[in-house]
């Protein structure tokens, strides 16, 4: 081997050794990820159209937690941090984590690297629900959630229920049937959405805002309602991570390894859909986080769901926090645009690296 080539090989070998060492310590990995997330959160809370010094930000947060800190900042800064930015950033954490975990779940359950949280019609169902809410002249607000959020949530779950009912049985293997039915139902709902948008006239912008996703409407109360669903669902999925691993070689192999495939399919599907529906109800259709986060994690630690699920949550949260920061700094553009800008090139790279067949 020539000297130049050797220089290239050694660092890669050492990198692989390092990755192996990390992989054997899942606790360390999650800890590192959480630390990075906390830093991202602090940065996102400090930054914005009104710049607040990092020291002040930290002070405000610590004081809010009850620690005796001198209030050396303006009341306006405190309001901005505690009432505007913190709930928004924490909503990004929760939604980002939820979407990433849902994406990892569907990728594992459907054994399809191109799956994302919306693959079973959730997106179209939520969008149609939201669009109908915009059309309907009813102004109801409960717990700071309007008709839009409620119908988006209902639409997302309703779509999955329809896909589930139609997609089972039939000529195809269960997973293929679900995927194809998801596509068909999604297309049908998208047609309904198009029709609704056509009829919506002046309210079109509202529907678009939902479609592109955004965290502007975040508040503590909304977070308090959505977070238990998303966090609870995420923990429940993480507890079943080994089931996702069992499915790696297929449903029959999983059954042979002791997985109750029928039961777990329903449970994982239900949990993934619940988390996605809650995320979508809170902040609209934010794309690419659920697709990209699990893949990046897999590149680092391999496909074992025991690592991928919690690390996807951490990485997805950080990704959305930073994307929202970017969206804010760029003049409050929809966060879905930023995630698309990050995610789409990644998606292309993913497609190019994917092998044409993955037969074992």
């Amino acid at each position, binding site marked *: 081997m020539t000297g130049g080539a050797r220089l290239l090989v050694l660092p890669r070998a050492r990198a692989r050794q390092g990755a192996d060492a990390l992989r054997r310590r899942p606790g360390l990995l999650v800890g590192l990820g959480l630390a990075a997330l906390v830093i991202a959160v602090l940065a996102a809370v400090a930054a914005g159209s009104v710049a607040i010094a990092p020291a002040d930000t930290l002070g405000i947060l610590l004081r809010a937690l009850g620690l005796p800190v001198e209030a050396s900042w303006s009341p306006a800064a405190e309001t901005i941090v505690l009432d505007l930015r913190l709930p928004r950033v924490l909503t990004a954490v929760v939604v980002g984590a939820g979407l990433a975990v849902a994406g990892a779940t569907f990728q594992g359950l459907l054994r399809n690297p191109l799956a994302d949280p919306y693959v079973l019609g959730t997106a179209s169902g939520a969008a149609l629900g939201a669009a109908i809410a915009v059309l309907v002249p009813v102004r109801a607000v409960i717990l700071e959630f309007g008709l839009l959020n409620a119908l988006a949530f209902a639409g997302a779950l309703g779509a999955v229920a329809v896909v589930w009912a139609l997609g089972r049985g039939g000529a195809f293997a269960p997973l293929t049937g679900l995927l194809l039915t998801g596509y068909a139902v999604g297309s049908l709902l998208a047609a309904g959405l198009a029709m609704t948008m056509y009829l919506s006239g002046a309210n079109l912008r509202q529907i678009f805002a939902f479609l592109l996703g955004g965290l502007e409407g975040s508040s503590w109360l909304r977070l308090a309602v959505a977070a238990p669903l998303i966090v609870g669902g995420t923990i429940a999925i993480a507890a079943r991570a080994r089931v996702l691993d069992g499915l790696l070689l*297929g449903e*029959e*192999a999983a059954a*042979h390894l*002791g997985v*109750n495939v029928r039961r777990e399919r329903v449970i994982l599907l239900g949990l993934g859909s619940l988390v996605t529906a809650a995320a979508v109800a809170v902040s609209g259709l934010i794309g690419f986080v659920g697709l990209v986060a699990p893949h990046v994690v897999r590149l680092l630690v*391999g496909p074992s769901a025991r690592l991928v699920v919690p690390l996807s949550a951490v990485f997805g949260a950080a990704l959305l926090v930073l994307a929202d920061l970017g969206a804010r700094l760029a003049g409050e553009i929809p966060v879905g645009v930023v995630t698309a800008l990050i995610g789409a090139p990644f998606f292309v790279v993913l497609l190019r690296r994917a092998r044409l067949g993955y037969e*074992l």
Partner: protein
Amino acid sequence: MLVPGALPVAVLRGVTAGYRDRLVLRGVDLTIAAGERVALLGPNGAGKSTILRVLAGILPARSGEVLLGGDPVARLGRGQVARRLAAVPGQASLPFATRVEEVVGLGRLPHEDPFRGPRAEDRAAVTAALERVGITALRDRDARELSLGERQLVLLALAVAQGAPLLVLDEPTVHLDLHHQVAVMELLADLNARDGTTILAVLHDLALARHFFPRLVLVDGGRVVADGPPRLVLRPERVRAVYGVDPGILDARAEAVELNGGAGLR
């Protein structure tokens, strides 16, 4: 290596089973004792894979009894079945790049704590399985990039790591060249002789079966039509009746197997 007096590892009695509207097994009787090495033969569609699925409880029997390790399989939880029966598929696919060590590690799922995950003894079992099958050198490779022969060995190592007393294989040599076919057969014979693992393999290759298995079970039209040592089961007129071909072909194949060093029956 038969263990006299022990409970039969697997029993099918008067079993009928099928898929949807299609009845495949029409009354199958089969008893396998601990430590046996049995090959399941028959034409395509005869019901060989169906027998394996019924035995593992994946396909419910419509009538008759299915006992695994003495208990009705319908009453066993999936985890219990996984600890009594390890299955090696003919092929499988992986959606993500996965290291061989992780694939083999899946065999430990029935033994793992669902919350704590793999422990030291699980990792040791994986290492031992890799060594037993002879693929330790492949442990860090992406399983999707291996040759067909190597992939089959990975699936075999997975089942070995599972550590169940009964090993069931569905056409394990279908994509393999003669060298790898013999290697797999010899490995099965070794597992049977040294560890006492009971082996039940669905095979298409009559010559391979004849050479490596002391007991053959011939299935045709959803029933067992012959069950015993090769010289009785593979009599020329039976081969002609069941497969519709000239049995002379068998001898040419058998020669090739013998020439390639299979020590065969012990």
